[in-house]
């Protein structure tokens, strides 16, 4: 099979596996309900918005061009966001004829279902035994990646992808009410997808504009978060996640202004530090700043993605400051083009 055929076969399998009317589609959904902490509606929202089942020909060509080639590739998966295994497999298949995958213990079902849907496309293994000339894709925590990399024999190309976070930059000067609402909608969608547990999820929002514009934007965000909460209930949060939200809420009550929504929290402050990443679980911290690039650049080492709305000048500044970050429209942060790894920091 050519790389194009392999990737297309995987995409077709993903389409089949996530069909909600199929037996396998029901099975994987039941599993995700147990493991993801998302509500059933949250799972559907993620499948609809973040699982790439119809990439363009150009995207697939770019995906293939973005990866190293080898006869054999290994993939070590972690308990990523639940659709993450799809792109991880696609990347390996784009570069290698033989792909061996070790699945995450917490989330083995999706990969197993893909395997059943297209037998022979890749292998599932419990043993990782890379050799000289192989490519090794690894996903997980930084410590895990370091340990795995150190254990590899010479001549194995290692491609590790660790955790990360997204942020948003919104330039509100002269934004129309319609634009404000659209951007708020996009930001809220990016936030609600995976309940901010994804490495592309926005965990901080820097906004420029007048106080009045920022207040109106915050009100739009509150309205959108409340509205989506009715259609897509928040999933269950762990006790630690709830505790993080309590601390965030109390801190931002002191620092700025907190709008309670059900479910979720929107906070507005004039703090210029993004070091207090918002916790997961629909927490949006809008930080009204004069100069938006510096706060983002300070945490550039953890940023994978910036959802952006603003002028071309500001976009250029952002790209110069953060060349390895995906800059997308708000509402598209969780659906980067199917053109390579979502996280470009390894490049």
């Amino acid at each position: 099979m050519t790389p194009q055929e392999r990737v297309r076969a995987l995409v077709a399998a993903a389409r089949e596996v996530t069909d909600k009317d199929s037996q396998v589609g029901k099975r994987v959904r039941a599993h995700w309900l147990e493991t993801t902490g998302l509500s059933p509606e949250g799972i559907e929202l993620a499948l609809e918005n973040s699982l790439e089942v119809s990439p363009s020909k150009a995207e697939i060509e770019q995906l293939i061009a973005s990866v190293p080639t080898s006869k054999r590739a290994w993939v070590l998966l972690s308990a990523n966001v639940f659709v993450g295994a799809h792109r991880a497999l696609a990347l390996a298949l784009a570069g290698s004829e033989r792909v061996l995958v070790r699945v995450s213990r917490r989330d083995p079902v999706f990969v197993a279902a893909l395997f059943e849907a297209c037998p022979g496309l890749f292998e599932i293994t419990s043993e990782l035994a890379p050799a000289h000339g192989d490519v090794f894709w690894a996903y997980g925590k930084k410590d895990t990646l370091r340990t795995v990399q150190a254990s590899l024999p010479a001549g194995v190309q290692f491609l590790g992808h660790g955790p990360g976070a997204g942020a948003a930059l919104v330039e509100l000067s002269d934004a129309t009410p319609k634009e404000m609402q659209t951007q708020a909608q996009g930001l809220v969608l990016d936030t609600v997808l995976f309940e901010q547990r994804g490495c592309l999820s926005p965990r901080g929002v820097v906004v420029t504009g007048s106080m009045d514009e920022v207040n109106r934007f915050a009100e739009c965000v509150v309205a959108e978060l409340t509205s989506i909460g009715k259609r897509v209930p928040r999933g269950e949060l762990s006790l630690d996640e709830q505790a993080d939200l309590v601390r965030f809420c109390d801190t931002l009550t002191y620092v700025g202004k907190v709008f309670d929504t059900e479910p979720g929290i929107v906070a507005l402050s004039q703090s210029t530090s993004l070091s207090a990443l918002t916790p997961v679980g629909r927490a949006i911290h809008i930080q009204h700043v004069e100069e938006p690039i510096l706060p983002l650049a300070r945490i550039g080492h953890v940023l994978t993605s910036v959802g952006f709305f603003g002028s071309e000048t500001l976009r250029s500044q952002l790209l110069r400051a953060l060349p390895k970050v995906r800059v997308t429209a708000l509402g598209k942060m969780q659906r980067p083009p199917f053109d390579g790894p979502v996280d470009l920091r390894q490049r």
Partner: protein
Amino acid sequence: MRAATLEESDALHREVRAFAAGQSRVTFDELALQIARFQAEHIAGFRQLVARFGSRLDSVESIPGVPTDAFKLTRVAVHPPELDVVRFRTSGTSAEAQGVHALRSTLTYSALSERLGRRALMSEESAVVVALTPNPSDPVESSLVFMMREFMRSFDPDFVADGGVTEPPLERWLFGKEGANLTGLKRACSYAKEIQRPLLLLSTSLALWQLLEQLDGVHFPLPASSVVMHTGGPKRRSSVLDLGDLRARLALRFELDPCQIVAEYGMTELSSQLYEGTARGVSLKGQSGVFLPPAWLRVTPVDPLHLRPVVPGTVGLARFVDLGNVDSAVAVITQDLVRARDGGIELLGRQPGAVARGCSLAIEALLEGAE
């Protein structure tokens, strides 16, 4: 800032110092509430927090704790920046904003830290005091270093601050680019022996680990009755084992009774400290591993969701009510996990925050600056 507000602040400071000296008729609860109401009147953020909690500020328990994160994101002070005499900063990575605790006066801070420090560390009237930290430049931005210098001033009659010359010349700040200054430490030991005073060695735990490495197994006896005060265990993992291990190793190398190795707990956002009460001949008495608060500081383990006191004996987040924080935050909520025991608290590490379930970054990971 109005003159009346300054006067009110000054009066509260005086009352806190009197309380600490046992010369006040006001109770802890009354004084804490007076300070809380003063802060609610003059700090908008605290007023908002009080409103959110629906608190009437009618009991100490009803005072909402200010999360330590607030010190990183905004100014936590009654007074304007131009009245700051010192700004204590938390340590932090380049990605992490530093927390700032701004003080309008250091009188209360100095009085409180000296009073408890003497009770915890001093078995005699005076000592030769040295610190395993670099010589600070003014203005001092570390509350710990500020306190060390206060101890030198208060406990060591030979110490001359602010660039003066001690007689005989003695280096006090014994840590530099090459690590611990063993020659300087040896000289301080000899001098202490000569004038028959104990040595009080002040340090971070980290600097002591480095000193142990430099000693490489060699014994370095300190004068009899010497005390080693250390602070700042690794905050992101349990420090219980580390504390015990450090104590044992230091006792061996310094040829001291392990009880003379005394741990201190303090944080930039507080004006008061806690100590183990293990040293011989001191008035603060307690068990090893138990940090004892002074009368002007109350610690309550609270559950992280509702911030209510936990069942006695169980673990909770440390909520401090610190009368020394007259101009900042009288009640502070930390992420340190503690358990009440024997009149004090055991320190059980730091609330790690939620474990990342997807590929998102745990909040703590950013603070480590390397993910």
